[in-house]
C-alpha cells in the first residue's frame, strides 16, 4: 500500500473508526437474536433463525437492496446523462406493490416446507431437479458479478480517501469474509443498522447543506440543465427525457422491478422474516429508502452546480463530498458508503452459499447431509464466493463486472415465471417452464451480446421501432414459449401434474 499526497488524515481516521466499530459488531453478531435453537443448522447461519421482525427486516433489506454501488452509480448516471438515469426511482417504487403481492405467499410456502432458497421452492412446487438446477445456477451466476460491483463501490471510496494499492480492499474483504463465516446472516443484519443510519445522516445533510451552499434546488437544476445543453446530442442527455427515451425508461423500470426480488440476496431477506405480515409491513415501510435514493440521485446535478469535474462519472459523489464537506464529514460519508458495500456483499455471499448448499451439494453430492453439515458447507462456500469476487476485481477489467452484472439482471429475471407462477396457480408444468427459461436466458444473452452488451434492444413492429429493456423482452419470450409448450404438453398428456408440495 502506498499513500498519495492528497491523503486526508481526518477523513481516514473517521473512516477507520467506523470500520472498526462494525467489525466488532460483525464478530459479536453470532450471539445476537439467538433463540433456544443454538445447534448448527442452515436456518440459523443462513437465515438468522427465520426470526427477523419488521424493523430488523427493514434495516436488512434496505441495507441490502440499496447497495453501495447504487450510491455511486445512480448519481454517476444522473451526472452524465440526466433524466434517463433517474429510472431507478420508478423502479424502486413499483417494486413494492410487486413485493406486497408475491412475497408473503412465497414466504408462507417456504416456511411451511423448510425451504431456504428460491430453487428449493421450485423443487418443492414442481418436483423437477432440472428446473431447480436452472434456478440455482442462474442465481449463482447473477450474484457473483453483483458482489464484484460492491467491491468497485468500495474501491472508489478507498481511492477518494487518498489510499492507493489493493491492500485496503483485500483487508476489508478478509474481515468481512471472517465475520460472515462465523456469524452468518446475523452479521449483516446487525451492521445494516449502523450502515443505514449513517447513510440517512449523510444524505439528509447533503441534500439540505449542498443546495443551501449552491443557491437552492432551482439553481442546482438550472446549472445541470445548462451543462446538458452544451453536451453533444448523443448520447441523449437533459433534465427531461427525449421522446426516444420513453420506452427505455419505462421498460428498464418495470423489468428491474420484476427482477429485483428474484436475486438470492433480496430473497434471503424475505425468507429470514418472522412472518408474512413482516413482509407486508416492509412493502409499506421500505419506500422510505426510495425517497432517499431519489435524493441521492440528485447529487449528480449538485455536482454540476458545484462545478465539480470528476475524473470518471463514478467519482462524482466522492469528489463532490471532498470538495464541499469538511474532512471529518467526508470521512463519515465514505465510511457509510464502504460499510454500505459490506452489508450487501455479505448477504449476497450467504444467498449464493445457501443455493450451492441446498440445490447443488445436497441435491447432487451428498443427499444425506445433516443440518450441521449443510451449515458447514454453506460457511465454506461463502468464503469461496467472496474470494472469487475479489480475484475477479483484482485481475479482470472492471468493465467485465459491469457487463456481467447487466447480464445478471437479464438472467435472474428469467427465473420469475418458475419461482412465482406456481405460487398462484397450478397450470404450468416443469418441462414447459424449463424450456421458457432456456429461451429467455440464452436468447436474451445472445441478443444483449450482439447489441454490444447494452441493456436496450430495438424491435420493429409494423414499421414502428421501439427501444426496450432486453431483459423484459427475454422474459416475455420466456413466458410465451412456456405457455405454448405447456399447452402442447397437456394436449399430449405428457408432463402431467407432478406437484410435490401443495400451496
Amino acid at each position, binding site marked *: 500500500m502506498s499513500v498519495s499526497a492528497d491523503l486526508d488524515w481526518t477523513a481516514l481516521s473517521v473512516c477507520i473508526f467506523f470500520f472498526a466499530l462494525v467489525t466488532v459488531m460483525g464478530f459479536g453478531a453470532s450471539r445476537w437474536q439467538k433463540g433456544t435453537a443454538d445447534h448448527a443448522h442452515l436456518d440459523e447461519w443462513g437465515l438468522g433463525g427465520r426470526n427477523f421482525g419488521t424493523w430488523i427486516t427493514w434495516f436488512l433489506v434496505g441495507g441490502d437492496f440499496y447497495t453501495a454501488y447504487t450510491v455511486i452509480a445512480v448519481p454517476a448516471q444522473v451526472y452524465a446523462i440526466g433524466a434517463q438515469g*433517474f429510472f431507478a426511482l420508478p423502479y424502486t417504487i*413499483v417494486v413494492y406493490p410487486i413485493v*406486497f*403481492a408475491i412475497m408473503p405467499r412465497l414466504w408462507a410456502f417456504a416456511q411451511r416446507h423448510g425451504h431456504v432458497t428460491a430453487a428449493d421452492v421450485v423443487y418443492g412446487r414442481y418436483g423437477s431437479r432440472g428446473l431447480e438446477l436452472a434456478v440455482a445456477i442462474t442465481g449463482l451466476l447473477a450474484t457473483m458479478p453483483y458482489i464484484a460491483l460492491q467491491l468497485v463501490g468500495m474501491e472508489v471510496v478507498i481511492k477518494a480517501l487518498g489510499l492507493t494499492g489493493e491492500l485496503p480492499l483485500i483487508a476489508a474483504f478478509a474481515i468481512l469474509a471472517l465475520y460472515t463465516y462465523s456469524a452468518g446472516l446475523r452479521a449483516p443484519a446487525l451492521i445494516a443498522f449502523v450502515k443505514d443510519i449513517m447513510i440517512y445522516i449523510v444524505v439528509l445533510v447533503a441534500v439540505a447543506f449542498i443546495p443551501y451552499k449552491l443557491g437552492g434546488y*432551482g439553481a442546482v*437544476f438550472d446549472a445541470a440543465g445548462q451543462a446538458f445543453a452544451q453536451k453533444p446530442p448523443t448520447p441523449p442527455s437533459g433534465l427531461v*427525457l427525449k421522446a426516444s427515451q*420513453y420506452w427505455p425508461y419505462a421498460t428498464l423500470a418495470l423489468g428491474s422491478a420484476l427482477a429485483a426480488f428474484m436475486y438470492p440476496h433480496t430473497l434471503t431477506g424475505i425468507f429470514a422474516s418472522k412472518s408474512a405480515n413482516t413482509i407486508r409491513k416492509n412493502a409499506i415501510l421500505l*419506500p422510505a429508502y426510495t425517497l432517499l435514493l431519489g435524493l441521492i440521485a440528485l447529487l449528480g446535478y449538485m455536482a454540476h452546480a458545484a462545478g465539480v469535474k470528476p475524473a470518471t462519472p463514478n467519482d462524482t459523489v466522492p469528489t463532490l463530498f471532498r470538495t464541499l464537506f469538511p474532512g471529518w464529514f467526508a470521512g463519515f460519508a465514505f465510511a457509510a458508503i464502504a460499510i454500505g458495500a459490506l452489508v450487501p456483499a455479505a448477504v449476497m455471499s450467504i444467498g449464493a452459499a445457501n443455493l450451492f448448499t441446498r440445490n447443488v451439494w445436497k441435491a447432487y453430492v451428498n443427499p444425506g447431509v445433516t443440518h450441521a453439515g449443510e451449515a458447514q458447507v454453506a460457511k465454506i462456500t461463502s468464503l469461496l464466493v467472496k474470494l472469487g469476487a475479489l480475484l475477479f476485481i483484482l485481475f479482470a477489467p472492471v468493465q467485465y463486472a459491469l457487463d456481467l452484472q447487466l447480464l445478471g439482471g437479464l438472467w435472474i429475471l428469467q427465473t420469475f415465471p418458475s419461482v412465482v407462477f406456481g405460487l398462484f396457480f397450478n397450470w404450468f408444468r416443469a418441462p414447459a417452464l424449463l424450456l421458457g427459461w432456456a429461451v429467455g436466458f440464452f436468447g436474451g444473452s445472445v441478443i444483449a451480446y450482439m447489441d454490444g452488451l447494452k441493456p436496450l434492444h430495438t424491435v420493429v413492429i409494423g414499421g414502428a421501432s421501439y427501444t426496450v429493456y432486453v431483459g423484459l423482452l427475454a422474459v416475455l419470450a420466456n413466458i410465451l414459449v412456456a405457455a405454448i409448450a405447456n399447452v402442447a404438453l397437456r394436449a399430449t398428456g405428457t408432463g402431467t401434474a407432478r406437484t410435490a408440495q401443495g400451496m
Partner: protein
Amino acid sequence: MWVLLLLPFIGLLWVPFYNVATPALFGFPFFYWYQLAWVPVTALLTWIVYRSAGHGDEP
C-alpha cells in the same frame, strides 16, 4: 381493493404524461417532484390494501 396497487404502474410507466419541466415545485421540475410524490402515495395505497384485507390484525 387490490386494483389500487396497479395505480403506481400506470402513474409511473406512462412516461409522456409527466415528462415536462413545469410546473416546478420548490425548484424541482415537474418530472422530479411528480415521481418523488409517488413514493408516499404508493406506500399509502399499499397500506389501504393491507388494512382492507384484514392483515392488520395478524401477528
